[in-house]
């Protein structure tokens, strides 16, 4: 964890770690794991809110809790850029991390795999592998998605690849 900024580090230590090693095919054990996932997400979301650093919404899109959808946003130059966020829990979870997708950005940056899967190979996958099964969805958002947005969104905005929704409306009207 050397090299990570102190804020991320202190946030990370406050997200509860998970204990149940179970994937979506493990029946009752997966329900147990799901409970831990919720607890970690609740803790992380309320911590973000209390620090005025709220930046995502995520909820299970099916009763089994294998597909998740929501939104995430990033503020750059006082403008808020919001994107759809979605991912599946892989069958080999938690040995392998979920592949976070921002479908609206598909094809706009090369730091992304087909279908809008953000590239986590360098900065996140090794951490996940080392900390499996203690890391969960909340950790993936904190250590995988947050740094990706911080690194990519400013570049995408400055290069004109993405426009703020107010600008997009005004240009389409004119």
């Amino acid at each position, binding site marked *: 964890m050397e090299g990570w900024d102190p804020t991320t580090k202190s946030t990370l230590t406050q997200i509860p770690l998970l204990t149940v090693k179970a994937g979506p095919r493990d029946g009752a054990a997966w329900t*147990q794991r799901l409970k831990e996932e*919720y607890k970690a997400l609740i803790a992380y979301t309320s911590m973000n809110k209390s620090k005025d650093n709220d930046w995502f919404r995520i909820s299970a899109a099916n009763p089994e809790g294998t597909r998740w959808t929501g939104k995430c946003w990033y503020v750059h130059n006082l403008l808020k850029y919001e994107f759809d966020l979605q991912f599946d829990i892989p069958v080999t979870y938690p040995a392998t991390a979920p592949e976070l997708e921002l479908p609206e950005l598909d094809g706009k940056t090369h730091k992304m795999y087909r279908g809008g899967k953000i590239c986590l190979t*360098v900065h996140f996958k090794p*951490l996940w592998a080392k900390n499996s099964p203690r890391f969960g969805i909340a950790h993936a958002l904190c250590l995988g998605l947050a740094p990706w947005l*911080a690194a990519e969104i400013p570049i995408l905005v400055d290069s004109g690849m993405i426009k703020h929704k107010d600008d997009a409306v005004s240009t389409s009207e004119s």
Partner: protein
Amino acid sequence: MELELKAVLSDLQNLNTSLSDPSHQASIDQIRLRVENLTRLAMSEPTRRSKVKDMSAEVVDSNPYSRLMALQRMGIVDNYERIREFSVAIVGIGGVGSVAAEMLTRCGIGRLLLYDYDTVELANMNRLFFRPEQVGMTKTDAAVQTLSEINPDVVLESFTLNITTVQGFETFISSLTNKSFNQKKEGTGVDLVLSCVDNYEARMVVNQACNELNQTWMESGVSEDAVSGHIQLLIPGETACFACAPPLVVASGVDERTLKREGVCAASLPTTMGVVAGLLVQNTLKFLLKFGQVSPYLGYNALKDFFPTMAMKPNPQCSNGPCLERQKEYMLIKPARDAAAKAKMEEELSTIEIPIHADNEWNISVVDDCEVDAVNAQSSDALPEGLVHELPTADVYKHPTVSNETVDTVDDLEDLKRQLEALNAD
């Protein structure tokens, strides 16, 4: 098409004879010439060959299998035609998978199962197999199109899905266990699974499926810099599974501000991909048709033309549950396996009982292997007096006891969901 054109010609002939006015003669002749031209063009169009019922060794230009059947005459393969009974599943129809599929198709494999969720792109054209006019098609559809033209005898089944999702995995498992092609076959419905995927997650999924089904499979991979690759044979319980020895994990803590911007685009070469596909299918043929030595692992370093081989034993502390079960099963049948190996050795020995040397001037005698083993075992297990091992001997991995601790204040899934939704609401 030919019949239609012939009909047009005869219609023209009739029209010509029925018309009394000779002024139309010239234009009718012109139409006739054009139709004849079209007929010739139609004749030169590629025709699809019909299916072949039995593989023949007859050496004629029209026999697609004569060169393959010659392997029998050369004494390499006992019964080449057995290849038509085999089913092979190929996961990932990319640079390696597509070429492997074409090789097996040309070899006349019985059935191929193809899995991929991607579509063909222009960026794939630096590799073999896919053609520019197939851009936009799913890789599975494009592969079936080409392969069925090359060899209509092969039964092709394609699955356009992502095997890492729960639903995709279920379809993957059920397609592997389906025995409709060869009902007499033991175990699963396929003889071998070839993993030709490009990422760790998908490999772990193939590993999971094969460990659960006790299905032998082969792994293949080409490095991101396109100058090295490998193939590996994985027999659940007998050799290391993909989770037994996880890839070297180096957590190189990266500051988000210094996050590399080189991009995720990996390099690739048609040559390296072709070599690895060739090695993979060669090992597959040796495994299926039982000739030569099947490599447990074969590496390829293109820069130095270095081909390392090695064998890996399974990890008794592997994190994959089904892998440990397969290891247990393999240990249980060890006595039977040893007896079979001994019987085979003795059979080989009994055939050469003639003394090779008449005299034995230096009193050289052959010591039984078992005795040497016993001596070695003793020397490695028992230490001389006064010495102790620094590390404890391996014991069973202790699973963390969690079930009791997780019971705390809130423990209802619906309640937790509501809590998160409440947080999401504002």
